[in-house]
């Protein structure tokens, strides 16, 4: 075991652990347990809001898989990755103040709470809770496996040992500290991701003898690496552009992102978060993917995509610094897993248990159930990660695009279109998920339909169906309540 590398990682894990304990203390002071555990009492400022959005969104793929692809494919993949700059400003501007105001009036703590109150339909609640549970749980388990692999490759521990360490560190702070622990650690993790990117980028450019030098070596390897079309010319403009939907504007429909748009303190926090978020997400995406491309001449011949960043960090940096930098992908994975864990838990507790199983549970019961459910979900994820079942891997493929196609219109049109109603929402969610799975299977078998990413068609289909069904079963135009619904 390389202690110079492992020590910074250990320190990182210990700090995270204490943040969880601190958040747990803080929770004792808050007046409402539920909105504190699952939403941090809506008190976050600009920096924290921006960082938690970036960190939740930036996952293993931004730090390992994405740069690994850029290593093989070249600048075309960096171009594709830059579609993600939009996430920095788009989600907060579109959901913006209206979502925050309405969520407060509804006393909504989860995205499902919002949908429940807006559409007043049991079917909407059940479909959305069910899809969150199935898809986000699979996504979480997949990241869980990724986190364990990363720890394994850095420390040389066995997979089970690494999995155990990962589970223990995530589970303790999320279970004990709730949403506040999640966002505070996200902030810390976001800062590590930002500076990790900066340092590694500079080190790689220096190791490669400057950008001009790296560029001519890339051309010598394969001139296609510096075109927008990929090393074999496999990336066409339509395909790359369709990522604007998948990882750019469509991100608005991801429950783990949307819920953050109702967690902030005031409009000033949102304004600052838009600026910080755009800068941080843009810099991380640009920097990490450039590192992937620049690593090609610096360290040719890496076979496994996920190994590119760890290998190049160990190559160009002194071990202790590499340890700090490699905390960044671990931070990225943890910050995604923790957000998904708390979201899945809130869905079970708030949307299922409190809605349909025990609506008048006492505060004390809710507290116990919340801690218990969060812990149990984590343990299930641990057990499943020991040898991930096929079904889990299969479901994870739909987690991102499938949820976007399901939630984007019920959320956006529910906010901005007064004729949006439950018929439209139900039809749209079913169409979104159903067509996503169908087109995914079609694309696997026959190549991409219309040459674009799977998500494209379902997003437009679910929009059309939403509008059609809302107008077909037309209801009175919806007015948001003028005051808090409990008063």
């Amino acid at each position, binding site marked *: 075991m390389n202690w110079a590398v492992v020590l910074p990682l250990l320190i990182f894990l210990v700090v995270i652990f204490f943040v969880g304990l601190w958040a747990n203390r803080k929770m004792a002071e808050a007046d409402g347990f539920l909105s504190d555990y699952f939403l941090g009492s809506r008190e976050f400022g600009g920096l924290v809001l921006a960082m938690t959005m970036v960190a939740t969104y930036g996952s293993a793929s931004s730090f390992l898989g994405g740069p690994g692809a850029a290593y093989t494919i070249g*600048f075309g993949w*960096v*171009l594709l990755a*830059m*579609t993600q*700059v*939009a996430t*920095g*400003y*788009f989600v*907060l*501007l*579109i959901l*913006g*103040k*209206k979502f*925050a*105001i309405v969520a*407060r*009036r509804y006393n909504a703590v989860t995205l499902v709470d919002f949908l429940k109150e807006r559409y007043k339909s049991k079917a909407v609640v059940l479909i959305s809770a069910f899809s969150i549970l199935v898809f986000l749980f699979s996504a979480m388990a997949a990241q869980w496996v990724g986190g364990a692999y990363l720890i394994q490759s850095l420390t040389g521990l066995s997979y089970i040992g690494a999995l155990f360490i990962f589970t223990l560190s995530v589970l303790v702070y999320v279970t004990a500290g709730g949403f506040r622990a999640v966002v505070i650690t996200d902030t810390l993790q976001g800062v590590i991701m930002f500076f990790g990117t900066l340092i590694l980028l500079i080190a790689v450019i220096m190791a490669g003898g*400057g*950008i*001009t030098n*790296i*560029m001519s070596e890339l*051309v010598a390897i394969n*001139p*296609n690496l*510096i*075109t*927008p*079309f990929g090393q074999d010319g496999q990336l066409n*403009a339509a395909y790359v*552009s369709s990522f*604007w939907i998948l990882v*750019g*504007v469509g991100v608005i429909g991801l429950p783990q992102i949307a819920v953050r748009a109702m967690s902030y303190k*005031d*409009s*000033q926090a949102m*304004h*600052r978060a*838009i*600026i910080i978020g*755009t*800068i941080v997400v*843009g*810099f991380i995406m*640009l920097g990490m993917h450039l590192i992937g491309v620049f690593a090609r001449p610096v360290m040719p011949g890496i076979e496994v995509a996920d190994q590119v960043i760890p290998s190049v960090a160990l190559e160009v940096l002194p071990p202790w610094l590499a340890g700090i930098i490699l905390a960044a992908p671990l931070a990225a994975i943890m910050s995604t897993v923790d957000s998904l864990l708390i979201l899945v838990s809130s869905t079970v507790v708030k949307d299922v248990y409190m809605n349909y199983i025990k609506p008048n549970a006492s505060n004390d019961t809710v507290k116990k159930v919340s801690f218990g459910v969060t812990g149990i979900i984590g343990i299930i994820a641990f057990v499943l990660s020991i040898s991930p079942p096929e079904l889990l891997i299969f479901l994870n493929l739909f987690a991102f695009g499938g949820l976007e196609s399901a939630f984007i219109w019920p959320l956006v049109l529910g906010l*901005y279109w007064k004729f949006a109603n439950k018929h439209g929402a139900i039809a749209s969610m079913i169409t979104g998920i159903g067509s996503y799975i169908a087109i995914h299977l079609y694309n696997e078998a026959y190549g991409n339909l219309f040459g674009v990413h799977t998500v494209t068609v379902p997003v437009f289909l679910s929009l059309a169906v939403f509008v059609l069904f809302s107008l077909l079963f037309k209801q*009175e*135009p*919806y*007015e*948001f309540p*003028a*005051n*808090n619904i409990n008063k």
Partner: protein
Amino acid sequence: MRNNNKQTDPRFRIAHREALIGCGLAVINILWWYGFAYGLGSKPPEQYTYILGFPAWFFYSCIGGFVLMVVLVVFVVKFMLKEVPLDDEEKEEGSQ
């Protein structure tokens, strides 16, 4: 249903305007990104020009596009977004 004669919350009008601004930003972002990437990048790599070591298409589309969006976002936040209270209790309008 109810409140039909009631005026829409003025904060909602602000929110609607800001949502449209968000769409506008995304459109600018996409056009800039696409235009430079495929406008300058579609010729064979031997004919590429370079800026600060990067191929010109990449420099303008990705690096320039990122800087442009940061500038636009800062401009929008400073001059176009409005501060509004999010809770209903403190309903005094026109802070600042």
